[in-house]
């Protein structure tokens, strides 16, 4: 068995053409190993062994003769790193993600926001008029309101 890296956790059996990758579960938990292995199963044969608490052993074998076992090992290692970073980042962003998700789900009930806006907005508050004194300006004084409208339009132009 030839060691492929300085750390000595990757061994390569040249005769049988497979690599043995020893993983410390304290660094890469079992879920990460499953995820990285799952990504690799299209390109290589992956067999898990060892102890999930102490040392996880991953046997990597090539599927096609033209493949390079070192490339497969490197790719597997990169996938492990990818998933580890993703997990750390997703743990950091968990609170923000939950807030965004809550907001998204709440927008499915727009009435919730409409009611909230009505409560907040004083200008749209309904004013009680039990004696019917209030009249709509445009209906009561149509010509004056028309003139005012035209004047406003001219000012804008």
């Amino acid at each position: 068995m030839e060691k492929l890296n300085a750390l000595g956790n990757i061994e390569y059996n040249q005769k049988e053409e497979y690599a043995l990758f020893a993983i410390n579960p304290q660094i890469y938990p079992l879920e990460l190993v499953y995820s990285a292995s799952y990504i690799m199963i299209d390109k290589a044969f992956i067999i898990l062994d060892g102890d999930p608490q102490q040392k996880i052993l991953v046997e990597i074998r090539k599927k096609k003769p033209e493949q390079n076992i070192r490339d497969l090992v490197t790719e597997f290692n990169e996938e492990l790193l990818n998933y580890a970073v993703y997990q750390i980042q997703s743990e950091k962003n968990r609170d923000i993600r939950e807030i965004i998700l809550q907001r998204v789900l709440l927008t499915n009930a727009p009435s919730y926001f409409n009611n909230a806006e009505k409560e907040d907005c004083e200008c749209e508050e309904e004013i009680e008029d039990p004696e019917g004194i209030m009249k709509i300006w445009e209906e009561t004084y149509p010509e004056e309101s028309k003139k005012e409208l035209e004047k406003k339009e001219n000012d804008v132009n």
Partner: protein
Amino acid sequence: MMSTEQICTFKLNPKFYSKNSILTTINAFNDLCFFEFDQEKFEIKIKTKEEYDLRYLGYEFSNYCLSIMKQNGV
């Protein structure tokens, strides 16, 4: 781990592969091979119905098991 004889026998580590995933895989591969599964030793014996490379069939079997484990949200 695997032999290239007509009958291929291999073990999968029960700490990594669940019984259910192995049984699901056996079910999926049922058209291709005959299976014997020793549930105590976690030993799987494969005999092909037609001419296949038994060694690679064993590896495909373990890959399939792994995908089932992942799908089940391990």
